């Protein structure tokens, strides 16, 4: 398929499989203004944190979003959650455009879309007991108005998330990082959401706990029929959990493919470099395998490079990369890459 065809179709990045689309992000842009002056504010620049991101997530699917720090992964997640007001683009959940909802309908809609935060220490209110943290959303949304039934459901959720039900009487600071993250997961489940954004949910935990939390997320996905957007920078975690993976660089998606396809057959030079940075746990192989080292630093999103944003660091860049902004095109069925050279 040619590059032009992708621009004709409004949102082409589906895996071609069956199942209906739950989340649809189209041409999402989040530009943060840099202002000067106190009263008369003048915009002196823009941080293009997210610059034209589109993807679809099907019901029951887990989409991984990977990329190095500052590439706009978290901002994309925050835009979907409506914690940031996107500069442009649409975010549709089950056909409803979240960016167009009024405050009241949005609050109602939020029941369906939840988040698990990276830092289990700052994501729980230190003044509330675990039982209140998980029970409050049920009370507010009238999911479980009866106090006794609510308490039972909170304890039920705690058990589901691998905690003891008595822990509802504890304060967050009386728990370990892993336990607190489980409380965060239980809170996200309190309203029976359909879609959960996992914003690096394990990167603040130590390795032994990471595996447990990943397995928990996997079990919950099957049990509650959840759809995840899994934001991470740990590629091995993503491979274990995700069906499809999108790679972001400087506010743009550079490659999107089925998980195994992306890991076995990366097309974009940035993805290749990223994958070759993952260490292999065999010193023999590790010594012999070729590594693609990208030179330089990530450019500033305030003043991104012209053309392909990756061209200054790209090992295969040619003259036209400096000029032309590459479109995502389907290099093989379901495998999209934003590089004209592959």
């Amino acid at each position, binding site marked *: 398929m040619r590059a032009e065809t992708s621009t004709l179709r409004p949102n082409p990045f589906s895996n071609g499989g069956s199942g209906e689309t739950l989340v649809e992000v189209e041409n999402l842009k989040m530009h943060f203004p840099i202002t000067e002056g106190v009263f008369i504010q003048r915009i002196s620049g823009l941080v293009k944190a997210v610059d034209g991101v589109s993807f679809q997530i099907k019901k029951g699917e887990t989409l991984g979003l990977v990329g190095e720090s500052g590439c706009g992964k978290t901002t994309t997640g925050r835009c979907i*959650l409506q914690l940031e007001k996107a500069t442009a683009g649409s975010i549709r959940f089950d056909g409803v455009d979240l960016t167009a909802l009024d405050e009241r309908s949005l609050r*109602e809609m939020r029941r369906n879309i939840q988040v698990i935060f990276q830092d289990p220490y700052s994501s729980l209110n230190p003044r509330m007991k675990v039982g209140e943290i998980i029970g409050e959303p049920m009370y507010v949304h009238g999911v479980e108005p009866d106090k006794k039934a609510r308490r039972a459901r909170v304890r039920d959720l705690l058990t589901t998330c691998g905690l003891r039900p008595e822990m509802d009487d504890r304060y967050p600071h009386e728990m370990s990082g892993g336990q607190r993250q489980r409380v965060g997961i239980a809170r996200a489940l309190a309203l029976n959401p359909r879609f959960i954004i996992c914003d690096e949910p394990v990167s603040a935990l130590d390795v032994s706990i990471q595996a447990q939390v990943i397995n928990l997320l996997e079990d919950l996905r099957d049990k509650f029929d959840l759809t995840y957007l899994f934001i991470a920078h740990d590629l091995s975690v993503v491979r274990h959990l995700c069906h499809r993976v999108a790679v972001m660089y400087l506010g743009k998606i550079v490659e999107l493919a089925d998980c195994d396809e992306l890991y076995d057959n990366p097309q974009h030079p940035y993805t290749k470099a990223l994958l070759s940075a993952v260490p292999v746990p065999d010193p023999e192989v590790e010594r012999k395998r070729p590594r693609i080292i990208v030179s330089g630093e990530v450019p500033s999103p305030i003043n991104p490079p012209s053309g392909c944003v990756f061209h200054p660091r790209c090992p295969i860049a040619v003259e036209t990369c400096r000029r032309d902004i590459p479109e995502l095109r389907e290099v093989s069925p379901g495998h999209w890459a934003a590089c004209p050279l592959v």
Partner: protein
Amino acid sequence: MAVSEITVEEVAAERNEPSHRRALRDWICRKPLGAAGAFVVLFFIFLAAVAELITVYDPVANSFESMHVPPGAAHWFGTDQFGRDILTRIIFGARTALLVGFLASVVGSTLGLVLGVTSAYFGGRFDLIFQRIMDVFMSFPLIIMALAVVSIFGTGIQNVILAITIPFIPRCARVVRSSALAVREIPYVDAARTLGFVHTRIILRHMVPNVMAPYLIMLTTFMGQAILLEASLSYLGLGVQEPTPAWGLMLQGGAEEYAESAPWIPIFPGLAITTAVFAFNLFGDALRDTLDPRLRSE
């Protein structure tokens, strides 16, 4: 993230009852001056509470046969120009001072707390405009502001309280706002928004409890200030009116005419004001040192 750290410790202190008592003893050893201040404050509260039981004279009735009696066995602090026992009036005056002090500082700083957090939570243009309004209020010196309120609404104890409360609001709002700005960026506030809570709930349940440290510090500082302001207003004749026993009023009645001939008349109410304000300030300072991690010396 300093805010979240300290609150965690406070919660810990509140939770474990046995260690609570130990924490109190530790605090007394570490902050003896603050503990002394707290003790004096409690002593004044005790005096005000049981005033009728511990005094033998009437605080308001004139007695012309015992005017200008110097301090002695019958009248420990002497009597004033109307023959009223000064000790009795100081004890009853503690009631006025504490009533005004507590009400004005609690109401003023609590309103400031809610407004400050609200301002920080909404941010942007709302915050900008709201803070400029606060600037206008703060550009008046405390006493001038209080004078203006009293001259508009008239004298009397409830107007004195109002006059002292209003200038406290922006001062507390400003300090609380700066802490709330930090709290606003902590993910649990994002979590509350994601869960679809209304603004009021997020402000009152998720942000306000986490800015308690600056609030409590402002509260204790204000108590001392409120007592001093009440005395100043009464001294200027704009506060509590005769014959209600009030320290500032006693000072006014005694200072001008009797400073030389009967110095006990102004000295004792003056001492009462000084002691009470000093005690509140010592306690407030110690509380600030304990709650503010940047000043903690451990």
